[in-house]
């Protein structure tokens, strides 16, 4: 082969190395990005020891170290660093994060009595407790050996009361409000049509609902009163007194006293909250359950819509359409759809799906609703259905191309064998071609899902919101509310990172949310790949 006998190197070796280099660079970037996200995302939930730092200018700081960076303008040869502490207590400090020049820190200690608090409002707090006012009115000083046990007990019972309150105010009062809205719309309609019997009935219903509303509010008040909520008196770094009602405390921990196991437990509990709870404080705290759920439901619906459309289109293009210049143009257009910026699909979705389709649906089926409810649209506004449809349209080319390839890859012999037994074309497609190309089709669906789940821009136009009051799936008929707006992890990242009033507080959540989004997409893909492999195994022969 080699023209020169002195060289053992085959020609083209340089290209092998070159492509290997390319692979390494690509892999390196992916791994770098993933590890950045994973590291930053995971450490959000870890509770490190919290120092008490004395600064040159006489200040004392209690706070959890958040970041360390080179000071702007410091010489590169001997860089000077500055530290960012999360000090919490936003209501006192104005900001829960604080930058300090590292060189100015005189001393640092880790006293065991530092207490970390996660609160319902105003973010976390790092304080040194003084005394506890129990719910029975007794005062326990921190020096008392019974303090810690009593404190934990009070925190736990306050949490139970808080849950009860949430149950009453959010769920039950929410339900009453929902019914009330419906009844009012019905009443307006009845009054307009002069249906005397109905008017009376609806008036009675509304009075009943108002009574229920009042009684629920009274119930909420008694819960709070009976609970005689305990409170914690403590002082902050500079000795100011801070009184925290324990009903506000979601989690309390002594960061400098915890052993590793305690930290792991705290980590798990925070992670659980992050995944299973609802967001708080402009989404910068609490959990992401609605967003996870919204992303999942939207992606699943998108797949359910794009798969049949894509497969049917591909079958027509490959099996039935007359091959020729027209078909070529159609193919080129379909492939080019994949390159259209996603925001364009968003605009189309808003213009066509939301206004035209949704508007017509409202005119046809929800005319009463429009007329008697201040023109509030049902489907004529962004929602889960339109988001799924828009993304389905966006990912359609992927599925079409994958299906066409898969159909083309079915051995000709199989097709001929089926036709030769007297099967019609459609029977051949249904019985032989589709099952045999199912793995290829699923590959397309996987790609579509991966692209759709991470898409944000078009969704902002057709139904994703920062905070959705209700999930798209719940216990009230018809259970699945395709018209509802929903939350989405991708949008959540954008919202936290760029729209948050407190960007420092949002930063860790950006990473955690990104990590969660990646994990979700990976899980969806693994699920689909698992199905595909099972299908493949069915079609693969053991011998030849």
């Amino acid at each position: 082969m080699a023209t020169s006998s002195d060289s053992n190197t085959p020609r083209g070796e340089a290209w092998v190395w070159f492509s290997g280099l390319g692979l390494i660079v690509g892999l390196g970037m992916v791994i770098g990005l993933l590890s950045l996200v994973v590291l930053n995302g995971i450490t959000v939930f870890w509770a490190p020891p919290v120092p008490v730092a004395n600064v040159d200018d006489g200040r004392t700081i209690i706070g959890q170290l958040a970041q360390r960076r080179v000071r702007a303008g410091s010489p590169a040869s001997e860089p000077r660093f500055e530290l960012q502490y999360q000090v919490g207590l936003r209501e006192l400090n104005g900001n829960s994060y604080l930058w300090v020049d590292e060189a100015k820190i005189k001393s640092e200690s880790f006293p065991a009595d530092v207490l970390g608090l996660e609160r319902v409002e105003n973010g976390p707090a790092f304080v040194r407790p003084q005394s506890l006012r129990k719910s029975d009115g007794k005062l326990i000083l921190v020096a008392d050996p019974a303090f810690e046990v009593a404190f934990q007990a009070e925190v736990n019972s306050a949490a139970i009361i808080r849950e009860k309150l949430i149950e009453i105010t959010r769920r039950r009062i929410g339900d009453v409000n929902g019914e009330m809205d419906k009844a009012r719309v019905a009443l307006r309609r009845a009054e307009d049509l002069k249906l005397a019997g109905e008017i009376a009935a609806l008036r009675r219903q509304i009075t009943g609902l108002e009574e229920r509303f009042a009684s629920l509010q009274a119930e909420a008040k008694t819960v709070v009163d009976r609970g005689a909520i305990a409170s914690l008196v403590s002082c902050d770094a500079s000795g100011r007194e801070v009184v925290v009602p324990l009903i506000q405390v979601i989690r309390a921990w002594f960061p400098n006293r915890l052993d590793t196991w305690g930290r792991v437990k705290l980590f798990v509990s925070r992670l659980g909250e992050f995944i299973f709870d609802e967001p708080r404080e402009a989404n910068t705290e609490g959990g992401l359950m609605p967003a996870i759920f919204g992303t999942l439901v939207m992606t699943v619906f998108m797949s359910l819509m794009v798969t049949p459309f894509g497969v049917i289109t591909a079958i027509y293009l490959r099996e039935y359409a007359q091959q020729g210049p027209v078909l070529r143009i159609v193919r080129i257009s379909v492939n080019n759809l994949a390159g259209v910026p996603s925001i364009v699909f968003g605009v189309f979705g808003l213009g066509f799906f939301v206004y035209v389709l949704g508007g017509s649906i409202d005119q046809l089926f929800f005319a009463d609703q429009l007329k008697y409810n201040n023109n509030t649209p049902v489907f004529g506004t962004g929602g889960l259905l339109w988001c799924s449809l828009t993304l389905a349209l966006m990912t359609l080319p992927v599925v079409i191309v994958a299906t066409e390839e898969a159909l083309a890859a079915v051995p000709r012999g199989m097709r001929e064998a089926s036709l030769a037994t007297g099967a019609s074309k459609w029977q051949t497609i249904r019985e032989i071609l589709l099952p045999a190309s199912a793995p290829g089709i699923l590959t397309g669906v996987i790609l579509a899902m991966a692209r759709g789940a991470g898409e944000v821009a078009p969704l902002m136009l057709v139904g994703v919101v920062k905070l959705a009051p209700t999930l798209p799936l719940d216990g009230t008929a018809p259970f699945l509310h395709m018209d509802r707006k929903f939350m989405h992890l991708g949008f959540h990242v954008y919202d936290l990172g760029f729209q948050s009033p407190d960007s420092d507080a949002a930063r860790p959540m950006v990473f955690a949310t990104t990590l969660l989004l990646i994990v979700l997409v990976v899980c969806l893909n693994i699920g689909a790949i698992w199905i595909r492999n099972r299908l493949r195994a069915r079609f693969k022969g053991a011998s030849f």
Partner: protein
Amino acid sequence: MSQLMNPPSSSRIKVRPATEREGRKDYISIRDYGFWYGQKKALDAISLDIPERQVVAFIGPSGCGKSTLLRNLNRMNDLVDDVRHEGEITINGRSIYDPGLEVISLRRRVGMVFQKSNPFPKSIFENVVYALRVVGVRDRAVLEEACETSLRKSALWDEVKDRLDDSALGLSGGQMQRLCIARAIANRPEILLMDEPCSALDPIATGKIEELIHELKDQFTIVIVTHSMQQAARVSDRTAFFYLGKQIEYDTTEKIFMNPSQAQTEAYISGRFG
């Protein structure tokens, strides 16, 4: 093509005397048939009659149009783009191009076994009963009965009767080919077309399939394409020799192999050209 490189002399080929059975002499009748793939003429002026319930072998060098003619008998070549034909093919007196005859019902009457076995990625059972499912047979007992009969006829029953629900793709090459035969005869077609059914098989499997052909010809009219002179001699009642798209000679197998009237035929079967 080992037979061609190491040819048996025509005298050593054992020929079975043509069996005379009752039936139409021109069951399949091909008249002045020509066929084009685009501009290329693959068949030219073919005229031959295939009697009912007999085995007819098509022989000839590679590319001479045997498969093309065979695939025209059940109109499989309709699937190829840009083809054209002239002349007439009738089965039992009726043109296969009759607009009133649906191609699907033609193919249900004319079964086909391909050179390369092509089982479906389904269970053995589903493969065999595919033709019945296609016409809407749902009755499990009927399907099972048809499955067993076909598999017995194709000499595969004993090997697969315990694994009917396994994937057909797990069979050996020869088993797959016999499965394809079982599939082709499950809906009892009148005619069975076989395009080099044994080209990928070992002598034992070949023997089984040849035996099968003997048994099947009581019920089916069989047209078989083969490159093996011995096979043509062993299984067929009549043989047609083609060369470059033309029909050179068509007669009883005995006549073709013992006393061909054309020099080209003689040269081919004695292996002097291919």
